[in-house]
């Protein structure tokens, strides 16, 4: 058997043994999201969702674990928007995120966000913008989703008992820095948080 044949057999063995080990977790803390049926959601979460069932056109549900806790998420289509509604394990509402175009952000806030982005990056492209509503206290969560989905477009956000933030994803570059970033701005357009999005290697797609 030639050395080359030995090498190729080792290649095959390596890949097959790695496949056999596929189900074993590599990291002790694993974030896992899986699709679930509505019947697997906590009762309190279902009660919140039932209040808006009349205006929801489509819904998917997910259960998330991060090794420490469990949460649930409902992705809804309603009133021409995509909504992501997150619940604690108990079913209490954690927050609501609404996917929006950038020009739906009020003008002065938008201008401040643009100035902030320009100061951070030489070039950037926003790829995803969400308006995030977080209940100001535990009791406000029960009605927040209903208030959001049933209010008129010109209703003032200040009437909502929720903390409003804008969460954005951007492809950006600045000199040697090149990557995707998640940026969170408060309701006035001030940068609250910035983190880099770590994407999977492209080795299997480009080579």
């Amino acid at each position, binding site marked *: 058997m030639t050395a080359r044949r030995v090498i190729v057999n080792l290649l095959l063995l390596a890949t097959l043994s790695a496949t056999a080990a596929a189900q074993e977790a590599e990291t002790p803390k694993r974030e896992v999201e899986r699709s679930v049926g509505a019947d697997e959601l906590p009762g309190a979460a279902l009660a919140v969702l039932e209040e808006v069932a009349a205006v929801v056109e489509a819904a998917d549900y997910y259960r998330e674990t991060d090794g420490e806790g469990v949460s649930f998420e409902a992705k809804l289509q309603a009133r021409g928007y995509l909504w992501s509604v997150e619940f604690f394990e108990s079913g209490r509402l954690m927050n609501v995120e609404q996917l929006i175009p950038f020009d739906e952000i009020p003008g002065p806030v938008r201008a401040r966000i643009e100035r902030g982005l320009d100061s951070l990056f030489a070039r950037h492209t926003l790829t995803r913008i969400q308006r995030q509503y977080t209940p100001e206290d535990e009791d406000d969560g029960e009605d927040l989703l209903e208030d959001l989905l049933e209010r008129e477009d010109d209703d003032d956000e200040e009437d909502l008992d929720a903390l409003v933030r804008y969460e954005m994803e951007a492809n950006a570059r600045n000199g040697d820095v*090149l990557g995707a970033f998640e940026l969170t701005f408060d309701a006035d357009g001030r940068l609250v948080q910035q983190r880099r999005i770590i994407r999977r290697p492209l080795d299997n797609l480009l080579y």
Partner: protein
Amino acid sequence: MRRMSWWLVVLVLLGGVCAGGLAEVRAQGTVDVIVEPAVSYSWASGDRWGYIAQLVGFMAVTHLEDRPFLEHTEAQLAASYGLGVRTKLGGGYLYRWDDPLEDGYAGEHRLMQQVGIVTYLGDRRLAHRLRAEQRIRTSSYVNRWRYRLGYEVPLQGERLDPGEAYLNTSAEALVSFDRDFIGDESRVFAALGWFFSNRRKVEVGLQYRAQDVLAEGDVGHLLLITTAYYLSR
């Protein structure tokens, strides 16, 4: 549930393509089946530069009376430069050892240049790859142009988390030419992958190749059973 139905449809369609190819191959009595194991190691230098080393074997399963078990082995080293977050320019070198020695010489030198454009749809990824290759043998010089459309989708929820499975599919068109001839090839590929972490993943798949479909004469059919182990630093 809707999402699961969607990827099942994709899987069935691609399985159908591979099964159709295999049926065609069997009908013509020209079954050519290859097992292709591969190991890949990639690493990055800063945000823009990336490198990849790859070792691939081609092991014949059929027609062993006419050819050796190990037909050829390829070693590849390539670099890529990120023009933007979505666009990568790349180039590399590949050496291929042949057995038996085609045209009396041991192997082939291959130079590659490519551009890849990736679109991120949540955690799904759509990738276009346009590649030019120069295949250099002592007795010949052949150019090859390739376009591949690839799509990768998580199979357990919207996000691909460590320990979860994904589907990697692609379709590719290739044209080879020199001064005297032009040849074509089409490839479809579907693989089931397991994502352990950003440093490690494995894919097991099927690739069907149809060669010289546009030329007069017999069409060549090839079915590859692929296993690929991807390591990243």
